[in-house]
């Protein structure tokens, strides 16, 4: 009985110590450690929020085996920048407005943030954002990728995005016929 009680107290103090820390340490697949503010991590990533709430955060570095150090660095960088940025009041477009995509456009600093990334880094970051459940970062990176696709021919897109063309010539021609309007070059 007493032992149990003592154990409980010890756990309690540990939890308090954990709660006192305002950063979490994340460990990339290649073993590098990154610190990020607990508040930002919990706010921006549903996965990290779940881990923090569930107490599965490791003081010595929470293993994120799926994320390379470069991508994780960008994630942490994004979290820090997001914490410093002033949130804009722009909201999803209201119901009456027709013909507007229900997306919140990336803010200026977010645009710059993804613009400076290399091609590979961008794709790594998309995957990391997807893995960590970072909705906003996923939005921003997907926006960037979609912008890279706009105005390009299928051949150009395949080249840029490294997509293998597994159509036969006839199949491709059939699709082009079917969706002729989409391929018309104005």
């Amino acid at each position: 009985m007493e032992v149990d009680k003592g154990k409980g107290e010890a756990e309690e103090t540990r939890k308090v110590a954990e709660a006192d820390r305002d950063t979490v340490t994340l460990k990339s697949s290649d073993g590098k450690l990154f610190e990020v503010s607990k508040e930002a991590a919990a706010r921006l990533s549903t996965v990290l929020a779940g881990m923090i709430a569930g107490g599965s955060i490791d003081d010595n570095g929470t293993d994120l085996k799926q994320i390379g150090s470069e991508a994780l660095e960008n994630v942490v960088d994004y979290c820090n920048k997001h914490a410093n940025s002033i949130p804009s009041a722009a909201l999803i477009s209201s119901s009456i407005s027709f013909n507007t995509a229900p997306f919140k456009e990336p803010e200026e600093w977010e645009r710059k943030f993804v613009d400076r990334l290399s091609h590979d880094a961008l794709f790594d970051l998309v995957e990391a954002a997807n893995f960590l459940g970072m909705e906003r970062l996923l939005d921003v990176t997907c926006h960037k990728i979609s912008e890279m696709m706009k105005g390009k021919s299928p051949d150009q897109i395949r080249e840029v995005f490294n997509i293998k063309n597994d159509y036969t010539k006839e199949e491709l021609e059939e699709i082009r016929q079917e969706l002729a309007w989409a391929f018309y070059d104005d």
Partner: protein
Amino acid sequence: MDSTPRGAPALPDDVLRLILRRLDTRSALATAALSKHWSRLPRHIPVLEFKRYRRYLRRRVDAGLDDRGQHDSTCDRPVRAPGHAFLGQRRNKLARRSAQAMALELLPTNNYAPFNRLMAKAVGDWGVQDLAIVVLKQPTPPCEDDVSYGFPHHCFEGDSKSSTGFGSSLRRLRLSKCAPLASGGRSRTPPPAAFSSLTVLILQDMPRTVRGRVYRRVIRACPMLEVLHLKSCLTRARICFDTQTSRVKELVIDQCTFISVHVRSLMPDQIHSTLPSSAHEMRILLSISRALSHFSALESLVVRFSGPEMWIVPDLLAPLVGEVLRLVADLPRSWDISWTCRLLEAAPFLETLHVHVTNHDSRVGYGPPSGFRHGALREVVILGFEGTETQLHFVSFLRDAPNQHATAGPLHTHVFSRLRSTCNDCTKHPCMHVSSFPSPVFRRLPTPVPAGSYHGHPTMKLL
């Protein structure tokens, strides 16, 4: 692992779909040609836009391309192409699509069937709730007023019966240069089900051939309607909203040539209206006596206004609850001071009051309520001022009324008689064209507001 080239194929399908959503319609459809994997991705395109295909069609026709090699008339031929080209509907291998909204630009043509099918498919199968149809101007219009295309509401009815069983899933509809209903339809026929679940209806650039009866039928056919915008509707019609059971919260009438708009029983939260310069007169008639008691949150207010455009406040968008800044009041035959005071009390943020006196032999009203104070009123403009005892009393009463806010400054009053283009007291507002005043209009009113009905209202508190 690091040697694997990075790229889109490495991304999970969920992420690819997120990217697809952000592409415009043409680019999103075109991704089907990237690879088999991409063509199988279900597409959710928030806004399907079918636009800018005129040059595409012309090039096809010029090049002698024809979908099926059929020898259609030149008018029929180009339409076949986009109908199929948009849909890819002969090819079932393409992934399922869904969309929230569809915007369709229509070129005038002889054959709209492919477009009608496209719309029916979009609403019925793809789950489109917002539909915007714009009929483009014909290169050589045979007649400016010609309605070449009507909203194909019949296409949605067959669909709804088979799939959902009730009405249509269409929530928001915007029609531009496109009649919502055929003019010839009998009023006895049941209202088209396509309108049954609409909450927003925007009718824009309606030609003269769309008669008042059509508007009335459409309004009746939309029991769920909350927002109605009528813009540039060029018919000389009398529009009547028998809105006893209606849910309309916002009514915008802009650049329309309606003879009158009668809103009975119920006042929308917002009424906006501007008139084209060519309009002779227009009235929005509100039975305020009953309506005000129903609404606790009135947002902007134009009451029984009429006359040339200078009477109409160009922008009434700003006012919010209780923050009506400008009020154009076209006073009823039975106007009296108490009525105006009620309005002023109801709008404590009101800065400008325009009063259009159309009937100078108005009866001497009831006395003003004791202890009346106006809010932020700074300017009162009275047109049609005849200097009758009642009117003089009204002006002096407003001038002498205490002000709740010391910051509001002194009250300026400008009065204009029918024959003079400048203020009787000063030389302000020379832009008012008094000569173009309409003749007194309320004699033709179907139901004149009974005298003193406002006075009897216990508390017309709007806040």
